[in-house]
């Protein structure tokens, strides 16, 4: 009888897994099943551009089954529970699916209900998210006719998916309102629970000028307790307040509720996972990839892409009865739109903070690290094509290995 590998979630991480394992595992020995209740696969980095009318909705969505190899069983079902002790998954429809190996790729989603007053009568009227397709589209419609006032861009609490996205939103908003000749009517404030917009020393030194030159006000160390929709204010636990006319918030991010129902997650439903092997701490035949983990890496598609190689290698080792290998270094890589046709690129891992340099070819580039350039912006736009055609198909990206390269980076030796 064939052995069974089950993947929960067909988002970025799960789809990469399906494609890579389909090539690695022998079809006569393994049966692969992937389960996701969604019908659509979204290019989530595109949600940043939707509110500014720079991407159309059609550019960021495709059918979920388009990217799953035909010989893999795709179940369009909702998962009720993982029963780790019995190596099985229960579906909401009552079916049971046994597995020999489980990969959890259930991602993270916004949970506005975690903050009092957020998801009430003003949700999608004066309070918006841009982390969902609906949120980004509703915000686009609002921004098309908004006449100005206090725009507050806000992070509820960490960790969040793509931690730089709200900052990019602020930069793009500055450009958007300038181009509409109404920048003087808009006051942009960036509110964060962290100690500032930039928290790493080198980035802070190199990038603080961006906020000043774009006249973006910073409110830091702000931990939101509630939204007071009567007064149009956000209120923090220290009773500080920030007034808004338009609140663009990144709500609390949480793992999937199936993790909660299975009793295997932390207080935000993220799955305890070894940060180097990506094996779960729940049980040895469960691996976790992407936003679903509790590891201290960024929650981002690029991270899932880098993790994939390590998860596949460790699954092969596990199947062969060998010890799993601690190969994941926390590598992350992302473009940061700074507006006016420019972007930054950062490349970093658990140990190495973002620094200046050249990427992906050391000493040559053509991309510049931690420095604004036009070519970085083109890189960001080209990434949508790379995502749909290379990344989620599990094909390696040339010159960009899973392990972060130190060559080409200006690293101050301690």
């Amino acid at each position, binding site marked *: 009888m064939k052995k069974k590998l089950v993947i929960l979630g067909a988002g970025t991480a799960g789809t990469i897994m399906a494609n890579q394992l389909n090539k690695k595992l022998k079809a006569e020995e393994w049966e692969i099943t992937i389960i996701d209740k969604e019908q659509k696969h979204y290019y989530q980095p595109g949600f940043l551009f939707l509110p500014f009318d720079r991407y159309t909705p059609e550019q960021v969505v495709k059918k979920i089954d388009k990217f799953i190899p035909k010989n893999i069983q795709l179940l369009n079902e909702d998962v009720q529970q993982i029963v780790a002790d019995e190596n099985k998954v229960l579906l909401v429809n009552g079916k049971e699916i046994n597995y020999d190996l489980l990969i959890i790729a259930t991602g993270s989603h916004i949970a506005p209900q975690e903050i009092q007053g957020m998801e009430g009568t003003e949700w999608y009227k004066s309070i918006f998210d841009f982390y969902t397709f609906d949120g980004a589209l509703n915000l686009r419609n609002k921004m098309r006719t908004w006449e100005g006032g206090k725009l507050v861009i806000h992070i509820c*609490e*960490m*960790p969040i998916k793509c*931690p*730089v996205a709200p900052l990019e939103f602020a930069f793009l908003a500055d450009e958007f309102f300038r181009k509409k000749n109404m920048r003087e009517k808009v006051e942009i404030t960036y509110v964060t*629970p*962290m*100690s500032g917009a*930039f*928290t*790493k*020393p080198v*980035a802070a030194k190199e*990038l603080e000028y961006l906020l000043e030159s774009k006249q973006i006000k910073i409110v*830091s*160390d702000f*931990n939101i*307790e509630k939204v007071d929709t009567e007064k149009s204010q956000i209120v923090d*636990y*220290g009773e500080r307040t920030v007034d808004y006319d338009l609140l663009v918030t990144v709500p609390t991010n949480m793992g999937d509720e199936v993790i909660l129902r299975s009793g295997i997650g932390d*207080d*935000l439903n993220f799955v305890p996972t070894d*940060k180097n092997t990506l094996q779960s701490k729940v049980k040895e035949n469960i691996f976790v990839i992407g936003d679903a983990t*509790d590891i*201290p890496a*960024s929650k981002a598609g690029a991270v899932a892409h880098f993790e994939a190689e390590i998860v596949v290698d460790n699954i092969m080792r596990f199947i062969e009865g060998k010890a799993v290998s601690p190969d994941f270094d926390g590598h*992350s890589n992302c473009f*940061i739109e700074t507006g006016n046709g420019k972007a930054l690129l*950062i490349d*970093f891992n658990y140990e190495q903070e*973002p620094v200046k340099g050249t990427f992906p070819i050391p000493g040559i580039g053509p991309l510049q690290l931690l420095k604004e350039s036009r070519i970085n912006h083109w890189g960001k736009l080209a990434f949508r094509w790379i995502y749909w055609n290379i990344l989620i198909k599990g094909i390696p990206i040339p010159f960009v290995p899973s392990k972060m390269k130190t060559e080409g980076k200006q690293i101050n030796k*301690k």
Partner: protein
Amino acid sequence: MSEKTIAGYSVKCNDQGFMEDLNQWNKEIALALAKEESIELTEKHWEVLSYLQEQCKNETAITIRKVGKSGIVTIKEFYQLFPKAPLKTASKIAGTPKPVSCI
């Protein structure tokens, strides 16, 4: 990174005054760091500090939410103990790293 003398001890600190090695921490250092923040450490403060240190040793990211669910203090009480920026201030006194994002 630099060496700083706190309460007579030479400790490794980053530019923002956060200790880089939790093993160098002791109660006298904590008292001195708290004084810089105009905080007088009570029994409750010490409980929060040792909770943060435990989380740090377990490599768990420290968040306001976790502190609020720790059973030691509510988030409101955390603000009363360490006013303005409780997580940052408490981490500094506890000798644990400053909470950071990716850039």
